[in-house]
Structures are given as C-alpha cells and as structure tokens.
C-alpha cells in the first residue's frame, strides 16, 4: 500500500492503495467519481481518459503512483453546466452522444488537442482522434461538435 496525493478537479485528494493499481480504480472506487469509464483496460478505446497536467491520459493503464503530486482533471472538472468547456457546450448543442459511454475519451482528448492546436484542419483533427472508439457511430456529430468548439475557442474574446 502507498499513500498517493494529487490534485483532482481542482481539489487536493489522498488515496491509500497499491501503487501499481491503475488510476481508474482509484478515481472510481476510492474517490467516488463516476465519469471515467472502464472500456477495455488496455488503452485501446479512450473511455477512461482524464487529463494529467493538461495532457490526455488513459487512466486504465496509468499506475496510481504516476500521478503523485500532479494535477488530474476529469470530465466533471473540465466544465460545469453553469460554465461548460467549449467542447462540452458544443457537444450539447450538437446532441452528440448516444449511449455516451465513450465521451470522456473524445472530449478530454479534443480539449487537450485544441488547446495546443486551435486552428487544426479537419484532417489534423481526425488524426488527433485516432485510437478513440465510439460504438454507436456518432463520429459525424463528434466532428461537428469539435469544429463548433473550435469556432468558440478561436473567437477573439476567448483567445
């Protein structure tokens, strides 16, 4: 057992668990968060994605010990209904999700990507989203939402 402390969605947290336990189980079972999902446990789908210091990260294969002292952001910490992240706002306006189990992967990955590449082309966006799965087939809605978010994020008042 180890004690691991990090910042989760803006708040300091502390977990006592095996250091090699994947972060996902600490988030879900020790810290009571629901939104990062188990999809494959193999970093092949994205359903468990969070951000570590602003970079998209698959929590299902990241040992808990790797986040010691770092900042973890989940979908819940990305934005709120009162103050949504532009991608969340765009996702709602486009009514993207069907079952919705995959959204952590797409939103957390796209948010990190657009922050670094605000003017990415369609082809670059498609490439940046490689490795993410959506079984319901909402891919066109996802692209519409990301482009809508891109427009929101590159407005002068947002820059």
């Amino acid at each position, binding site marked *: 057992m180890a004690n691991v402390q990090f910042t989760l969605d803006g708040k300091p947290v502390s977990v006592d668990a095996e250091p090699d336990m*994947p972060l996902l189980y600490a988030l879900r*079972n020790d810290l009571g968060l629901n939104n990062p999902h188990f999809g494959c446990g193999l970093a092949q789908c994205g359903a468990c994605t969070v951000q570590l210091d602003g970079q998209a990260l698959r929590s299902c294969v990241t040992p808990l010990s790797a986040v010691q002292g770092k900042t973890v952001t989940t979908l819940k910490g990305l934005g709120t209904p009162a103050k949504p992240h532009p991608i969340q706002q765009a996702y*709602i306006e486009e009514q993207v999700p069907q079952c919705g189990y995959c959204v952590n992967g797409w939103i957390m990955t796209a948010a990190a990507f657009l922050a670094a590449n605000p003017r990415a082309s*369609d082809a670059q966006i498609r490439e940046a989203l490689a490795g993410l799965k959506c079984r*319901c087939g909402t891919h*066109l809605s996802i692209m519409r939402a990301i482009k809508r978010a891109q427009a929101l994020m590159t407005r002068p008042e947002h820059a």
Partner: protein
Amino acid sequence: MDDAHSQPLSRREFLLASGALIISTVGATGSLALAQGAAAKLVPSPEQLDSWLAILPDGTAEAFFGKMDMGQGLEVAIAQIVADELDLGVEQVVVRMGDTATTCNQGGASGSTGVSLGARPLRNAAAEARRILLSRAAAVLDAPLDQLSVTRGVITVAGGKAQSATYADLIGGKHFDSALEWNKSVGNFMDVKGQAKPKAQQDYRLVGQSIPRRDVAGKIFGSDDYVTDIRVPGMLHARMVRAPRAGSTIASVNADSIRNARVVREGEFLAVVAEREWDAIQAARALEVQWAAPADDPFPGTDGLHDHIRGASVLKREDAMRSGDPEAAFKRAARIIEAQYEWPLQSHASMGPACAVADVRPDTATVWTGSQKPHSTRDGVAKLLGLPSEKVRGVWVMGPGSYGRNDAGDAALDAAYLSKLTGRPIRVQGMRADGTAWDPKGAACVHRARAGLDAAGKVIAYEFIAKGLSRVNVMFNESDPRDCLAGMSLGMPLNPGAGLGTPAESYGFESKLLAWEVVPALLERCSPLRTSHLRDPLGPEVHFGSEQFVDEIAHATGTDPVAFRLEYIRAARDAAVVKAAAEKAGWSARRPATRSARALHAKVLTGRGLAYAQRADTVVAVVAEIEVYPREGRIWARKFTVAHDCGLIINPKSLRQTIEGNVVQGLSRTLFEEVRFDRNTVTSVDWASYPILEMRDAPEAIDIVLINSTDVAPSGAGEPTMRCIPAAVANAFFDATGVRLRRVPLSAERVKAALAKA
C-alpha cells in the same frame, strides 16, 4: 370528487426511477419494501391508467414507459407524443423508463419498435387521461365539454368565462383509478385503449419538431449514472472466470492461488469475489484452474467457417416467400446468373463490457442492469433463483451501449446468482474479452443467389437462400436462464432456437423464392460463439447478398442499377426512396469501370453504389460514394446519401442522428468486423483483434432525405438504414474497380487480394 380520487399518490415510482436515488434512499435495506409500501405489488397492471401516467401535484406528468431509450432520442419522442395528447408542454412530461416496478412489460428495446409499437399505449393512455380531466373540469367549471380547451395543463372555457381549472387542481398527486382495455399482449405488442380517441395527426403541435433530447447534459458533465456506477452498500466486486478453450470443463480450482479474494463456484459456474475491484481483477487473472478440454475441438476456425456452413446439415428450413414456379422458370431460362455471399460472425463489442449489480435476499431480489430488456432480466433472474417474478425487480440503468442481445443479459444473471451464493450484494463487470470474445454473436451465413433471364434479359426466375447459424441459438432476451451462461454453466437443459431471415424488398420477379436454412450451432453449451440478435438481425447480412446480387443482374443485363431496381420494384414508397436517394446523390446512368490492370494501379479510384431495403413498414435507399486506394487496400466511404421513409416523423433531428449512427456502425461492420477464432478459442478479444471503424474512416458527409409520410403510422428507424450499407459499399467498389467483393469484411487484406486477382 369521490373518495377514490382523493387518495394521496404516495407514488412508488417517483422515488425509484434514478439509480442514484435508489441507492441513497434504499441502500441495502431492501428496495422492495419501499416499492411495496405504496403500491402493494411490483408488477404494474396494464389495465390501470395509473400504470401508464401520473399527474404530479404541480400539474406536470410522468409517463411510465416499458421500453428504453438507448441514446437515439426515444425518451423525448415519447414525451412529445404524450404532451401532445395531454396538451402539456414537452418539458412538463417526464418519461420514466425501464424499471420493472414502475413500467409494464412492453418488451424493452426491441426491433426498432420504440415509437411504432411502444408509443401506442402511452398515446392512448394520455388521451384517456385528458378525457377524464376534461369531464371533471366540465363539472367543476359548469361548462359544456365542447366549450373547453387546454393549454399547458390549464383548462379554460370558450366565450370569455374567466374561470379555469388545472390538471394540478383536478388530480395532481392522486390516482386516476380508471381502467383501460388491455389487448392481453405482453411485450412489444402490448396495447391499451380507453374511451378517448387520440388526436388526429394534423392536431399535433410537438410531434414533428426537433425538440432537444434531455439525456445529453448528464452524459457530458459526467453527472448521470451508468449501470457501472451503481454502488450498493456492502457489495462485493466479482469477475467471472470462463474456460480459455471453448467446451472445457473444470477439473480443479486452486483456491489458494489468489489473495484478497475468494472463489465462488457451483458446477461450471466459476467466479472470484473481493471487497475491492482491483483485487477481484487480479484474482481472476491469477486463479489457477485445471481445465479438462473436450475430446474434439469444436470450431472450424475462422477461415473454415463458411465451408462448414455450406456443408452442414439443415436443422430447419423455411420458404419465407414463394411466388410462381421458380424451378420450372429456371428450366426455361435462357441464361442463369449465380453468386454466393458470405457474412462472418460479428460481436456487439459494446463500448464497455457488461456490468450488473444484484442484491438477492431470501425472498426478493433487485438487479440493476444495462440490458435493453429489464423485464426479461427480471423473469430470467426469477427463474434462476426460484422466485416468483413479482418478487424480483429489474432496474435498467444506461449501460455501455446496447445493440441487441449482448453480454448484459449474462452479466445480470451472473450477478444474481453470485449474490445468492455469497449472501452479499454483487457488482460484476466483464473485462474487455467478456464483451468481445464472450458476448452472443451476430449470425454468420452464406447466401446462394440465382437469377434466370429470358432471351430478352427479363428476370423470370429468382432465388435467394440464406444458410447460416441461428439468430436465436440463444434467445434474444435473457428471460430464460437456459439462454444465459449462468444457466448453461449450472447444467440446465439447453434451449436452442432456429431462425434466420430473408431479404425484405418488393421486386416483382415473375417466379421468386426467398428461403432460409439454419445449421446446428458449432458448440451448444457455454459457447463464446453462441449466436443471437445483433442490431438489425440478418438485415445487413442478407441484404449484403441480395442487394449486391440485384446489381449483378443489372450489370449482366447492361442496365443501370437504379433503372433496374425501378423496373422491378412494385411498392410505390420503395420506388420513391430509391428515386429520392439517386436524385439527391446526383446519380446518372453510366457504365461501371472495366477491369483494366492499369486503372487498378491508380492511386485512388472512385465509385458509387446503391442499395435499398424495407424493414417493417420503413423503407430506405442508400447511395455510397467511395474512394478505393488500391495500394493500401483501403476503402474510404466519403459520402452517403440516405432517403428514409419511416412514416410520420416524430423528431427530425433525433431521426437524422439515429440514421447517421446506423450508417457509421453499418460501415464499421462492412469494412472491419469479423470475430476470429481458431479450432477452440476465440482470438478476437479486444479492440486490436476486433477493430472497428475509427475517425479516420468515418464518412465526411451523410446527406439525408427524410420523407415524412404523415398518413403512415411511425414504423421505426433504429435499424433499417444499417441493412443497406454493406451492399451500397460493395456495389460502389464494383463501380470503382469492376471487381466484386462477396465476403464481409471488405478488409484491406481482401481488397488487395481481390484487386491482385483482377
């Protein structure tokens, strides 16, 4: 008002519908007690209006719906329909779904019938509620019925009388205590009628509008529960342990090989349970089991599957459609065209493996499930545990995707049995291989197609015979434990069904035979390759063959594929979608590419293809426009055009997105998906070994023409488009290359091999 109407509506339902609320309110102390406290029984009676609809103290309504919205916008569609009948705003109607304690058994999500069949009793119940409320208002307001009108639940009198009455005043928080006439059907066809007649289509205000869905924000902010998020105090985490080689039985289990977890076993039913989930996962991996393999390997291997099917005995055959005298007509044909098409086993491969939580007590049980048929879950769990159905409560909570009989039904019964054996609430979740290698599979099949032409090129004989593994080797729901891994591993007798499917179209070929033949399962008990319903069962499978074959006949007769279809299609709505899709896509008759070796060395080739099909009363035509990259073997279907007629449209935006999902999932199944296996083990176990479509291969555009046949009852959209996708793409490939691909998936490997042979 008489006394019967003044009973307070201390309604079981109001508290019970949200998973989170159930847990915090009820905990492990027995949710049945709460449910029973108010309503006395756990199975609502279809014959009571109160089972379908409640008016709350604030005048808003709750509709109790025995089907589920799997994310395609059904919830808001039902709200639109109910709100229109009741003259409420759509935001004044909440739809409660999928809790067997509060909803009648309408069959769950099934066959794209959410609106077409599922909305009927709710529409009738809402109309009856409105009739009762208006008659009470007439008495209270002392005004004739025909002078009353309702807006947002406020009833006013025409002609300037200032008084008004509200639904809240008239019945808010109280029961209707009014009977309905029930057609005695349980499942999809359940219907009820009151004295009221529902509104005519032209009086709808909300039906037909793109009202936004109400389940989106909860998913985007991570605030709504999935079944994976249900936590019951005192619960243990479990993982099932399945035989690595199919058909093996347990010789011995070394219970000392795991730590912080323990083995639970009865017969071949084997699991590990632990207080902590990570311990359960590690224990399931570490557990030492000696398996006894069967004498003979059960499977033919992926590449031997279709030859196996061709040569297998026929368990059951059905000539689904026969007209004229096909045998005689083939004999006098001047020319016969033949082809065979092959479809692989496919996995539901839901976004996450199934999860279920069960809390089994001596006399009662509650199961939280992502299954799209929680009433079936209830019935299956009851039979497994030996409890009466009314002592079991199934609660649907959104799962990680559901497209038919996936692994959710198995997980629910596993959880229930583990809870019974351990005396603790159980949360069981699969690992990735449980969702890919161990879910019931979509049926593999081989289609034999034959057409006889006369000297003038007219089709005088046509035959299409689908032969394959049964679509119901295990039943398409889990209402019987014999159809689930739990029941099978406990040694229950088997319960295989035999069924397949045939094309749904209106081609008026003079003599015509459409038939199916089912072959025996590869392995009957606890098979990872057992087959059942996968979204649009047999739709993509058979139409990949039949709609490609129609193109082959058109080509053989030198006819444009659209013109050929229009020549033979007999139903006007069918012809209308074919014309609409072709027109929207800018279709013009031209000859397909010829097999010039030089052309096949181009960097990119382009082509377009069309397919059309019926499903129930819905008709769809799809044009695919694709690019073929011969060197990579890649097919990129850049654009689809869909013409879709599903009768009266309830919500155009939800409909469009449902169609898009069909196109993309259908494209994924066409290009990438095949469950692979060797002679005893499924080797498609994750997303690397069972790839699905990713963003790179998603279409750039899906152009949709919605035909709103307002005089035709809504007929379903959750599946029909999918069946057109495989043949549309394959026909486009032929248009681009002059080469036919008759086996799915149209993978890079197969594309390269087919082009190399050309």
